[in-house]
């Protein structure tokens, strides 16, 4: 880790019982199958898993998704049926109907408990049917919500080509392709484009983001002369980036610690430990950190950040001086809290499912620095929170906003407490300078809505205070 010297000292870390509400990590299927366009996700689990996906993804289910359940029956559990034969039958059907470039098997709680050897079965079946099979164990025994993506990307990291094949014939062909791509453009223009970049070792970014956000962040780095050699994941499985020993990698999301570890240990990459590009402060710190690793003097970032903040003032003024309580369920909490503190909010508690202090070191350091600069007390960080206890604390603290899952949002609203569903932050575009506004759009929505209803006197809509 590159930031060991900035280990935070003063932040207060707690750990509770882990009795909290979050989504099952298999939910990552919902956004990954859309991101990786030639993939097919097969969730090997029970009716419970299927029911969750069906309801959590709502209307997306009906758009002929490239995902399905391999629903285990009693015969599978008691090993009366042969796992290999069963999976082969289903995968052949998928190949016939959809012909994907990769099948991702999502292992679940049940496959863990019955110890189905997915990692062992996959290479054999892969050889037999001729489609790559990637295994990710995204189960509720080990992981929470967004960590599902982490397990998939860690498995994908092993599939990235380790060297671009550079045979002479291919080289010529490549140039031909290049010529074709540059068709109609002057030789000088192409050269000029090349010279826009500084000479630096290859950089690969990891984390699944919507394509427009990928473009924005790539362009952001381009402004500093940094070329992004590839993204994990790419739009298609067949376009996974080349990752050679010694490449630099950098994460864009706080929940990707397994992927980071895999890239460092298995692929011998160098991890750039930076805060995450969430909020203009985070984006600037992220770009600056990457620049500093490559010895580049960042240009125009400060002005840019200032400009963005000016544009956000109408929203920031709604938040200034207010308090926000994170119940914790998707691991974006530290970055969002840091950004909202910079907006002038106070944060009594940040609940988080899992806290990797090494992977998030730079983000934690920025959080501390932000608190110091804004003159607000450091938040209490609660790992594996206990929702029941948290609700007691919410009653005591009476925060202006609670960021929470959908299980608690309506009951809290009925008790006069403003809430924002945390899940929306996972699906909205929140990265980079341009999307800071979207985060605040979400965070201020309950405040704006409730301001417009304020005079009606409809704050508490439960008859007696419930026991909870």
């Amino acid at each position, binding site marked *: 880790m590159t930031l060991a010297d900035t280990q935070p000292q003063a932040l207060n870390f707690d750990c509770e019982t*882990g*009795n909290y*509400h979050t*989504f*099952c*990590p*298999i939910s990552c299927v919902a956004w990954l199958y859309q991101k990786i366009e030639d993939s097919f996700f097969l969730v090997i689990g*029970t*009716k*419970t898993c299927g*029911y*969750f996906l*069906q*309801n*959590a993804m709502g*209307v997306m*289910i*009906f758009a002929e998704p490239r995902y399905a*359940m*391999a*629903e*285990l*029956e*009693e015969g*599978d*559990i008691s090993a009366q049926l042969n796992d290999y034969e069963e*999976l082969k*039958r*289903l995968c052949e*059907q998928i190949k016939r109907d959809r012909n994907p470039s990769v099948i991702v098997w999502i292992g679940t*709680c*049940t496959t*863990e*408990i019955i110890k189905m050897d997915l990692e062992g079965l996959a290479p054999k079946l892969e050889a037999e049917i001729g489609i790559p099979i990637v295994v990710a164990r995204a*189960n*509720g*025994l*080990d*992981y*929470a919500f967004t960590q599902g993506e982490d397990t998939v990307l860690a498995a994908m990291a092993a599939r990235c080509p380790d060297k671009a094949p550079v045979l002479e014939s291919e080289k010529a062909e490549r140039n031909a392709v290049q010529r074709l791509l540059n068709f109609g453009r002057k030789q000088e223009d192409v050269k000029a484009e090349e010279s826009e970049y500084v000479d630096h070792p290859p950089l690969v970014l990891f984390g699944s983001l919507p*394509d*427009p956000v990928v*473009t924005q962040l790539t*362009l952001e780095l381009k402004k500093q002369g940094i070329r992004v050699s590839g993204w994990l994941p790419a739009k298609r499985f067949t376009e996974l980036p080349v990752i050679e020993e010694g490449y630099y990698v950098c994460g864009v999301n706080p929940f990707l610690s397994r992927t980071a570890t895999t890239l460092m240990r298995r692929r011998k990459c160098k991890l750039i430990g930076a805060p995450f590009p969430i909020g203009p402060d985070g984006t600037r710190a992220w770009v600056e950190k990457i620049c500093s690793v490559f010895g580049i003097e960042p240009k125009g970032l400060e002005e840019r950040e200032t*400009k963005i903040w000016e544009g*956000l003032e109408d929203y920031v003024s709604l938040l200034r001086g207010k308090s926000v309580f994170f119940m914790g369920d998707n691991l974006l909490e530290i970055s969002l809290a840091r950004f909202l503190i910079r907006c002038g909010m106070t944060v009594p508690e940040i609940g988080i499912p899992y806290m990797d202090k090494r992977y998030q070191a730079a983000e934690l350091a920025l959080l501390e620095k932000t608190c110091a600069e804004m003159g607000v007390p450091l938040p209490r960080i609660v790992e594996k929170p206990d929702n*029941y206890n948290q*609700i007691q604390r919410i009653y005591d603290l009476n925060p202006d906003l609670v960021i929470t*899952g*959908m*299980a*608690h*949002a*309506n*009951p809290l609203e*009925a008790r006069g407490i403003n809430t924002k569903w945390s899940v929306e932050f996972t699906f909205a575009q929140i990265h980079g300078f341009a999307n800071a*506004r979207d985060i605040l759009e979400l965070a201020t929505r309950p405040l704006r809505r409730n301001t417009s209803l304020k005079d009606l006197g409809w704050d508490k809509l*439960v008859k007696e205070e*419930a*026991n909870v």
Partner: protein
Amino acid sequence: MKLAYWMYAGPAHIGTLRVASSFKNVHAIMHAPLGDDYFNVMRSMLERERDFTPVTASIVDRNVLARGSQEKVVDNITRKDKEERPDLIVLTPTCTSSILQEDLQNFVERAQLEAKSNVLLADVNHYRVNELQAGDRTLHQIVQFYIEKARKKDDLRTDKTTEPSVNIIGISTLGFHNQHDCRELKKLMGDLGIQVNAVIPEGASVHELKNLPRAWFNLVPYRELGRMTAEYLQAEFEMPFVDITPMGVVETARCIRAIQIILNQQGANVDYESFIQDQTLFVSQAAWFSRSIDCQNLTGKKAVVFGDNTHAAAITKILAREMGIRVVLAGTYCKYDAEWFREQVRGYCDEILISDDNGAIGDAIARLEPAAIFGTQMERHVGKRLDIPCGVIAAPIHIQNFPIGYKPFMGYEGTNQIADLIYNSFTLGMEDHLLEIFGGHDTKEVITKGVSADSDLAWSKDGLAELNRIPGFVRGKVKRNTEKFARDRGIETITAEVLYAAKEAVGA
């Protein structure tokens, strides 16, 4: 293993949780991994519940896998006992705990020693029953538990109420229009001069259960939930029950007549014929509606019906018998109770389909090309794809199927609601003729040029690609804004970079 994209009935624990959380002051503890408490989200979102859903999980994680739950489950039960003081805690197994095969009954017994509340283990096998069967079983289990308990303590009330009275059994949370049906049934009972002794499980306290035998009879409006309980009460206390779903004019009358017979057998001496006559002809609009000339246009139109047993059977009969519509296919996903369904719809439809494979149903709809579908949310989406209108009549359902307006499916007001639903699902009379004559709606082609269809600016390939990624409904606005931005700055070619710079500049 089965390749599945969609399921009609949920897993067993959902049924147990629906029953447990319908009761007042009953808490369910699931023995489940992180993320399996999705039930709370559904209840909170679909029912727009104001209170916290009384369901928590005793989390199964790696440690539990390695060492067993040990004290964890017992601790969670006793903790919840102290925090919430529920009357009853139901320990709910899930698919995960089913295969762990821990002795959950033992945990329950140990927790019972310490807890003030009663503790029960829901007796459901995850791999053998579905949501509906599990709900039925859990309700029976809870009723039996409290009846036996009262019997032991000798405070079971078996004396009948002085006036005729009824228990309405099977109203539950997350049930299709259950709240509205419940209100309508209570009103119907009131009109018939029958007291409502208890409604279970929705809104009931477990302390009321010892009074169940006081009612003269039980009414089980839904085929899926409550029968086991009614049969148990019949066996124990010789309580008769009526299990005719009062949905549709004819069936409502049949249900009322069955009630009349039961009450008269117990010496009530009631005659509901004039009530039925009056309601049918003048209060409910459905009978008149089906006779009105408007409804003639529906004669012989083809419809497909699919859903749970209760609703699919009732709607099939309404379409065929009360509105003269031809039901080309009636189906149910309640495979475990298929015989009952066949018997109900025989003679009212051309074809019967018993399946829980949504592909098979979609194919059947495509093959039959009906003028309207009455099904679940899944059939609604099949209808969208095939351009066939669909009325939703059964779970699984989305949030729009939990209306806040009064929309019962049962009783006489229910007949009005169903008539509207059916009528509005078909393409309407005059429109139908016009479409036939003119071969479609008014022309959709734009005749004049739009205000900003053309522009003098060039878009680069990457710029255009980015623009096309922007959702259609705002694309035009983004395009205009970007071009204005470019024009103001004298930029000739719009690249992706320019697009995003413009986005930042306008702060959108």
